[in-house]
Each structure stands twice: as structure tokens, then as C-alpha cells.
């Protein structure tokens, strides 16, 4: 049996290498702007991601205004509508969720939670952020370019993406989108290698892999997946750029466009879809696994109970990560690929439901016989469980190939993926921000504002996306700028659309309150102290809060136990920090 339990007598290996000399900032610029400190980089990543995420949020309001009240807003014509949905989707998936989970939480938490002073390659880590920022700027430049951003849908399917019937297809839009993705992937690779090597090589003495918090397991596995999956998107983007600029025909068969024979020919549009989804499906889990990991730690800490079935949880993360590479074509059941593939991909897809279900069971079993504190992080964790279970279960509809046939390309799909990879991970992000903000800033976020934010966001988001499934079941296709006249659509469907739009605006407004809270609490928030949640993991045991450059003062922490020693029988407190040898009082003052 692997020792996941506390065992103070476990041998701690001696330090074999001396501490590396850190790069120390010499000026304000290198301390706060061109910083090589993972904590600063994390904040830069997070702020940039939230800023561009706000743009995507506004885009969602605009498209919901159009869907809820078609014809009322003249400036949202078909071209604009498709540009809005495309940018909204791409920003949310890549530039917000991926960047925030890996670049934001990954950078902040990996060195602190494994007991390292910093990432192992701080310079590459810094470059990673600046390339990410450049990618965001190139992407946003699409809004100002001639012809506007691309309106090809976030999946960017060719040939449509590079033809004139699509906004941005023959203008700058698609070029900027593909270039931005390429920059993002280069930047991510630099950061991603850092995260992997730091977890493998930078852990404190005693921090065995099976003592790591699940947050780190989630981020670590997701990063490995991203390093393997993003190259597929990278080559697809390069090939499409060539098709568009150099006249190659990777994805271009013989085409008659608006009555005119194009010169290209012989390429395969469906090849792009395979490349895209070979990246795209792991991408779902690149977002989900960090969320799984973080929410495990939130639930455990705020229920004052060890995570139930830790080893099973670790293995579930690893198995989900591996399986997610052989399920991609479930996005392509009606794409026209050989239909026999459906048998294989439906089977793998439904198998992945088993480890995922085990994770859900273990979260709720952690609540069982716990001591549940209904703090804001716990509330968001509960909201995650509800929305993730809901969204995961509708995945069993879409994954089951024949059921997907009537539902694919309808609003059911939109509702499903928003619930499972939009709402659910964002619930975790909010929970995580309420949880770690005190460590990052030294102050608590305001509780009253947080409560309003939580209830409006959770219930509002559920009211947006739960009924939306039924519009899809009815048969309403997605990506329709205007449904127009359709005999099978009853008047009540339009009423429901209007309701969803009103809820979307409401939920959006609540996010403004959240941003205000982030700023307000910087100065006015209650002082947090070093370990306000009485948590076990290393980041709460730093000598200073916020942690100083180098994280640990003179001496690196030594780890004696797993991350989940809550409510251990016989212990003085209801938590034992990972760096504490015995059961008694803390060896080191937690507060700064």
C-alpha cells in the first residue's frame, strides 16, 4: 500500500542538491513587469485572461440580444453575429479557460504547493506570458482589421473559414486568428514544459507524487495533455494559413465558389476536423482536469475531511487524461467520416464516463460525515457538482453515437458544452479565487458581495442552460443568426429564448460585481493572516503572506504527510499541515 496516510516516521531523503540561485529582480520593471517570479507571472496571466474574458462576455450579451430579440438590434447583422460567436468561443476556451487554469493557477500554485522556490525555467516562463499577451493582442486586433474578425465558428472548419462567404475569410480575420493560435501554442509550450519539469524535479523533500494535492495532479496531467494535443492544432493552423496565403490544398478539394471554379483541389476538409478534434477533445479535459483537482481540494478543506479515495482520484485523473486522446471523433459522428468509426468512438466515449463518475462519487462522499463549512469556495464547489453532473450526463446523450444524430448541431449541444466546460469549470475558478485570494493579496474577499455573486451566477447560469437543452431537443439548430420562419418551432420557443437572454444579461452583470469585489477587497478586505481556511497544503504554510520572492525564506519545507490530514483522530487541531511531523501543534507559526 502506498503511504498516503500521515506517517511522521517516513524517511525523508537528504537534500542531494544545493538550492539553486534564484534570479533576483533588480528594478521595478524586472520585479513587476518583466518578472521571472511565477507568482507575478500568474497574476499577469490571470489579469490578461480575465480582461479578454470580459470581451467574450460582452460578445455573449450581444449574441443573446440577437437571439432573444431578433430584428431589434440593427447593428447585429449576420456577419457580426458570426464574428461574435466565433470570438466568444475561441476566447473562452483557449484564451480564458486554458490560460487561467494553467498559466494562472498553474504558475501560482505549482511552486507553492510542491514546495519549490519557483518554476525551474523562470526565463522561459516569463517569455510564455509575453507570447500569450501577444497572442491576445493579435486576436483582439481582428476587431479593428479590415473585414473584422473571422466568423467561421470557433471550430474554424475549412473550406468555409477561408472563403468569401464567411466574414473574415478573404480578409484579415482568419489570418489573425490562426496567427494568434500559433503564438499562443508557442507560448504555452514554454510554460507547459516548466509546469511538468517543476512538478517532476522541483518538489520539496518528502513530497512524493502520491502526497501531492489533487490540484497539482490535475494541472500536471492537463499540462502533459496540452503539450501532446496543441501540436495538432498548431499544424492545422499552419496548413490552413498555407491554403489561404500560398494556395496549397491541404484542406481544399475542387470547389465552385459562387459559380467560379477555384484553382485548388485534391485536399480534404475532413482532415482538418480530425486534427482539430484531436486537439479539441483533450482540450475539454485540459480545462476540466485542473478544475477536478482544484475542486477536490476546495471540498476537502472546507468540509474539514480528507478527500475520499485519494488514490482512486489520482488514477481517475490519469485514466481520463489518457482516454481523452482516443475519443475525439465523437465530435464528428455526423461529419461524414466512415460511419463505422462510430462504434469505436461511442464505446471509448462512454467508457470515459466511468472514471468521471467515480470522481463525482468521491466528491460527494467527501461531504458525507464531513464538517461542512458553507464558505464561498464550498458554495461554488457545490454549484460545480450540480452543473458538472448535469452537463456530464447530457454528454452521455451526445456520446452515444445514434442519439447524437438528431441532437448534433442543435442548441442541445450548445447547452451541454456550456454546462460542462463553461459553467462548471468557471464555478471552480470562482471558488478557487475566493479560496486563494487571501494568499495572493493577504486579504479576504468581501463576503456579502460574494454571496450575491454566487447565487446570481449559479442559479442564473442554470436557468440559462438547463432549458436550452429542450430547444435543441425540439430541433432548433445552433449557429442561426435568425431562426426566421420555421413551421416546427412554436411561438413559446421564442419566449424561452427571450428569457434566456434576460438571464444571460443578469448573470453577466453579477460578474461586474465580482470584478469590483476583487479591486475593493485589495484595500478594504478583512486581513486574512497566513492560513485563514486552516488548510494543510504547503502554500498556506509560507513564512510571509503574500509569499515573498523565493517563497520559503531561508529553508525549504520538508513534507511529512499527504495533503488531506483533516480531522485526524487524536490530533490537536482539525488539520495537520503537510510540513508538520507529529500530531501536535504546528511546528512553525503559520501566520506571518
Amino acid at each position, binding site marked *: 500500500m502506498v503511504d498516503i496516510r500521515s506517517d511522521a516516521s517516513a524517511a525523508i531523503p537528504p537534500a542531494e542538491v544545493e538550492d539553486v540561485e534564484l534570479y533576483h529582480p533588480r528594478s521595478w520593471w524586472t520585479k513587476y513587469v518583466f518578472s521571472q517570479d511565477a507568482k507575478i507571472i500568474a497574476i499577469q496571466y490571470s489579469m490578461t485572461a480575465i480582461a479578454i474574458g470580459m470581451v467574450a462576455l460582452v460578445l455573449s450579451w450581444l449574441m443573446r440580444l440577437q437571439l432573444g430579440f431578433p430584428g431589434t438590434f440593427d447593428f447585429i447583422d*449576420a*456577419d457580426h453575429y*458570426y464574428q461574435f460567436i466565433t470570438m466568444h468561443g475561441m476566447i473562452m476556451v483557449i484564451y480564458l479557460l486554458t490560460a487561467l487554469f494553467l498559466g494562472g493557477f498553474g504558475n501560482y500554485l505549482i511552486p507553492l504547493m510542491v514546495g519549490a522556490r519557483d518554476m525551474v525555467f523562470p526565463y522561459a516562463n516569463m517569455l510564455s506570458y509575453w507570447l500569450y499577451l501577444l497572442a491576445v493582442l493579435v486576436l483582439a486586433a481582428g476587431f479593428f482589421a479590415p473585414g473584422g474578425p473571422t466568423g467561421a465558428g470557433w471550430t474554424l472548419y475549412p473550406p468555409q473559414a477561408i472563403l468569401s*462567404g464567411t466574414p473574415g475569410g478573404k480578409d484579415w480575420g482568419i489570418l489573425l486568428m490562426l496567427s494568434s493560435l500559433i503564438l499562443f501554442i508557442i507560448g504555452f509550450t514554454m510554460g507547459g514544459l516548466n509546469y511538468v519539469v517543476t512538478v517532476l524535479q522541483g518538489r520539496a523533500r518528502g513530497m512524493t507524487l502520491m502526497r501531492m494535492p489533487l490540484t497539482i495532479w490535475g494541472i500536471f496531467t492537463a499540462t502533459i495533455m496540452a503539450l501532446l494535443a496543441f501540436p495538432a492544432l498548431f499544424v492545422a493552423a499552419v496548413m490552413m494559413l498555407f491554403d489561404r496565403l500560398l494556395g496549397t490544398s491541404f484542406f481544399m*478539394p*475542387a*470547389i*465552385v*465558389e*459562387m459559380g467560379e*471554379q477555384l484553382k485548388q483541389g485534391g*485536399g480534404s476538409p*475532413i482532415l482538418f476536423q480530425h486534427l482539430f478534434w484531436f486537439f479539441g477533445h483533450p482540450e475539454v479535459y485540459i480545462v476540466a482536469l485542473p478544475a477536478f483537482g482544484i475542486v477536490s481540494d476546495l471540498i476537502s478543506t472546507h468540509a*474539514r*475531511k480528507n478527500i475520499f*479515495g485519494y488514490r482512486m482520484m489520482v488514477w481517475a485523473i490519469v485514466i481520463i487524461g489518457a482516454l481523452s486522446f482516443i475519443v475525439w471523433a465523437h465530435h464528428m459522428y*455526423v*461529419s*461524414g467520416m466512415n*460511419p463505422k468509426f*462510430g*462504434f469505436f468512438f*461511442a464505446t471509448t466515449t462512454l*467508457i470515459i*464516463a*466511468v472514471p468521471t*463518475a*467515480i470522481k463525482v462519487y468521491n466528491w*460527494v*462522499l467527501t*461531504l458525507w460525515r*464531513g464538517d461542512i463549512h*458553507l464558505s464561498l469556495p464550498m458554495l461554488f464547489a*457545490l454549484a460545480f*457538482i450540480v452543473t458538472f*453532473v*448535469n452537463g456530464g450526463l*447530457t454528454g452521455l*446523450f451526445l456520446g*452515444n453515437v*445514434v*442519439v447524437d*444524430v*438528431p441532437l448534433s*448541431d*442543435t442548441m442541445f449541444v450548445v447547452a451541454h458544452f456550456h454546462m460542462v466546460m463553461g459553467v462548471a469549470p468557471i464555478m471552480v475558478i470562482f471558488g478557487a479565487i475566493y479560496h486563494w485570494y487571501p494568499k495572493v493579496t493577504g486579504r479576504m474577499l468581501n463576503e456579502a458581495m460574494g454571496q450575491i455573486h454566487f447565487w446570481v451566477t449559479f*442559479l442564473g447560469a*442554470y436557468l440559462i442552460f*438547463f432549458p436550452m437543452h429542450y430547444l435543441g*431537443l*425540439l*430541433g432548433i*439548430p445552433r*449557429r442561426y443568426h*435568425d431562426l426566421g420562419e420555421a*413551421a*416546427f418551432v412554436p411561438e413559446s420557443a421564442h419566449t424561452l429564448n427571450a428569457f434566456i437572454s434576460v438571464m444571460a444579461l443578469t448573470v453577466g452583470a453579477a460578474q461586474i460585481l465580482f470584478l469590483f469585489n476583487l479591486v475593493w477587497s485589495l484595500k478594504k478586505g478583512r486581513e486574512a493572516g497566513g492560513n485563514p481556511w486552516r488548510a494543510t497544503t504547503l502554500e498556506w504554510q509560507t513564512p510571509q503572506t503574500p509569499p515573498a520572492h523565493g517563497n520559503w525564506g531561508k529553508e525549504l519545507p520538508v513534507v511529512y504527510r499527504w495533503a*488531506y490530514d*483533516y*480531522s485526524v483522530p487524536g490530533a490537536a487541531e482539525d488539520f495537520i499541515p503537510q510540513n508538520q511531523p507529529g500530531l501536535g501543534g504546528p511546528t512553525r507559526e503559520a501566520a506571518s
Partner: protein
Amino acid sequence: MAVVLILVIVAVGSVVFHLFSPWWWTPIASNWNYIDNTIIITFWITGFVFVAVVLFVAYCVLRFRHRPGNRAAYEPENKKLEVWLASVTSIGVAAMLAPGLFVWHQFVTVPPGTTEVEVVGQQWLWSFRLPGADGKLGTSDTRAIGDGNALGVNPNDTNGLDDLIIEGGELHLLVGKPVKMLLRSVDVLHDFYVPEFRAKMDMIPGMETYFWFTPTRTGTFEVLCAELCGTGHPQMRGTVVVDNEADYQTWLQEQQTFTQLLAARQEQTTIASSTSSSK
């Protein structure tokens, strides 16, 4: 306890919404009621799991919420429970997958004696081609598209000369007769989608895709495009009419063959050139 109450409302409310929702699938008009049945099975299984998990969470919050002096239990693992839960989940998943794959096998196996109809998508129009008296569709090629030959039918293939060509008009199908829809596109991706038929499939330039179904009731149905195909995507509409035998034959007589189309086109160009030369 507000949290407990709201969790219960979410679980019960979702079920009530499901039962009383006015938004439900359109009355089916094809043989794919197997698909509807599989969806119903899936709704039952997943609905049960959703309600069970959310109510369990609500119960935990009610029963184990923090009170002064409380302390959580310490139980890192419980192998028996974990194995048991994993097994029950696997059975539930298999119960959904098995009928799904069974019906998928039917979906991809075209029965013998199925007539073929070709659907051609272009931005933003549906066209159709039916085999003529010989019962065979001629070959086609996007490169052959040109004057008078909007679908790129191969003029050198005798099988294609009697094909019936319907450019942008209605498609009529015979009720009760299985039909294989051969799908082509000449520009970008499209997707032939009639909600009442339940079946749909993308159309890809450069290759031919298909699906099959049997229309089970007469009536007029709307064709929508279900794969984003550019700015005009929502306006890409068409009509399928499912006829009885007599109506179908009447309609069939009114359609033009490929040869007739070519001849008409030639006549037009001759008239056009003669009028222009006489000026």
C-alpha cells in the same frame, strides 16, 4: 437552510420542467423511432443519477454542516464501496451504450432495394438529382460544373443523361419507401437536416456522404442546414414533400431530365448568340 432548499428545488424543478416542458421533439416522420426510444432510456437513467446525486449533496449539507464542536470523520478509502459504485456505473453505461450501438448498426446498414436520391448543397441552396428510368445515377464531378450543368453531372456517362435534376426546388419522396440520401457539396460544408426525420449528415466538398431512412407519413417538411456554411447559413432552406404513390408519379412526370436541361440551355445560347449577331 437556504442551500439545502435550493439544491432540492434544482433537482425536483429540473424533473418537473422535463415532464411539463412544452418544448419537445417534433412528431416523427421516419423509421428512426428507435433513436427516440434510446433517448428516452437515456433520459431515465441520467435523470435518476442527477436527482440522486443532487439530493445526496443536499442531505449531506443538511446533516453534516458545521456546528460548533463538530468534527469530520476520518476515512481515506473504502475499497468495497468504490468497487461497488464503479460496477453499478459500468452497468448503467452499458445499458445506454448497448441499445445505442444496436440502433447505430441499423443506421449505417442500408437495406437492399433502397432508392437513391442525391442532394447537392451550395451556398445557400439545395438541389436534388433523382435517377431516371434506368434507376441509376450518373457520375458527377465538381470540375464539370459550368453552363447548364449546375450539379456537375458527367455528360459522357449515359447513366446520367436521364437523371432528373431539381435546382433549388422541392424534393418529393415516396412514403414507405426506404431512401438513401447521397450527399454532395460543391463549395463548403453543409448538413441536410429535417428535424422530423431525426437523421442528418454533413455534406463535404470533394467526397460523398450518405444516410438512409424511410419516410413514414405524408406531408411537407422543412429542410434546414445544420453545419455553419457562411453568412447565409440560416437562410439555406428547402422543402421535402412526402407523397403517396399517385402524387409522387404526377410530380415525377413534371421534372426535367439532364438531357432536356442541356438542350434547353443550348437553345438559349443559340438564341442569345443569333440575336446578338443580328444587331
